[in-house]
């Protein structure tokens, strides 16, 4: 993750950006938890809602890998499909963990 490039893209200072990333990690974790449950219980409406929210937040910060994955889940769910959704949950989880590690490095 190139923090400098990501912050510049948004026109923010590095520390401002990192603050928002921390906020994102918190909300992202809770959204992802909801998404996971929704996928397991096949609650389509909730899948759309939580994936949309992950998509929006990640896109706004420039985490495009997460954005793309969440977008696919949302689009599929809007067509009543959940294929690939549980793999997507894992992928997003991996990315979030990765970001968390890098952030700790940056803030340390």
């Amino acid at each position, binding site marked *: 993750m190139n923090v400098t490039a990501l912050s510049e*893209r*948004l*026109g*923010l200072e590095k520390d*401002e950006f990192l603050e*928002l990333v921390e*906020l*994102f990690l918190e*909300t992202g974790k809770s959204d992802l938890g909801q998404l996971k449950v929704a996928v397991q219980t096949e609650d389509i409406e909730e899948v759309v*809602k939580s994936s*949309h*929210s992950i*998509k*929006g*937040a990640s*896109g*706004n*910060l*420039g985490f*495009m890998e997460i*954005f793309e994955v969440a977008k696919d889940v949302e689009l599929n769910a809007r067509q009543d499909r959940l294929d690939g959704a549980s793999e997507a949950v894992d992928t997003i989880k991996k990315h979030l963990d990765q970001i968390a590690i890098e952030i700790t490095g940056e803030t340390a």
Partner: protein
Amino acid sequence: MNENKNLTILLVDDEPIGIKVLERTLKKEGYHVITAYDGPTARTIASKNQPDLILLDIIMPGEDGFEVIRQLKEDPRTVHIPVIFLTGKDGVDSKITGFDLGAVDYITKPFHGQEVLARVRLHLQLSLATNTLISSQADRLRQIKDAQESMLVSPEDIPGANFGVCYQSLLEAGGDFYDVLQISDDIYGYFVADISGHDIATSYMTSAVKALLKQNCIPIYQPAESMRMINHVLEEILQEGKYLTACYARLNRKSETMSLINCGHPPAVYIPKNGDVELIKLMGDVLGAFHDVFFEVKDIHVRRGDRFFLYSDGLIERPGDKNVWTKGLEDLSNACRDLRDMPVVDAVACLRDVMHQKTKVFEDDIVVLGIEV
């Protein structure tokens, strides 16, 4: 930039991270930022705080962005505030819907900070330029003192407009006024107004209104925008308590559309070639009295041979019964029906005579303007 310090931007998005990112980006440039997480809150804030610009997300739970802008544009207190849509959708349809509803621009998410700032700056500049234009037009008009009668167009002046007119001024400085403008090759504007009062100031007003029409009835403005611009200037130059009622019709021959606006004026008469007479009743504020105004617009698909009559209230009012138009309008509909085969150039005077038969007294100025498509 220093000049940004008084400019306020309202951010509306249900996604907190997005709001925070934009808020910081904008604050850095010196803008004052207010945020709202849902539509109803956004509308309340817009109307109370009067932001200079609104950034509005389309997809939100409950009231979505389309509904929010629809309501903002219906509210006189918020209609003038430029709205930029934030959209995750790249579908052309949603963009068109946004523009149709009155958005000035859109920004596709995920956004780039510099792009947001550039678009915000552009639309704030446009909006400020419009406001400056209004005050500079008002300044210029304060100095105009032209004669009144010489300002009225006759049908020969603009043959393409295909209209007939009957103008009768009761007093020397009449309060009624009409104008016909060629806006572009295929677009014509028709305007009939009644200015309150009959004094010198009133006659001076007619030249001002004429100049305003020329400046503001131009291809880049939709009819309601033209009327709003004119209203803003009139509001600045009119004395307290003065106002005018008006009816504005814009005919686009290419798209075969007649757009009508009514600013507190009696309804225009529409006579389709193969249909019955119809009174076009529209809501709209009078011009020059209020800062925030709303005009309902009616677009009618017209065919060759369709007719419209615009007129001043003198035509339908009767002695001792000034405020009731009902009977007068009924008579007018019937008269228009009877005269439907007469050339429009002659029909206008005939219409006045027929209506005069009913009222017997000329109590007011009268203008009758007939248009044939």
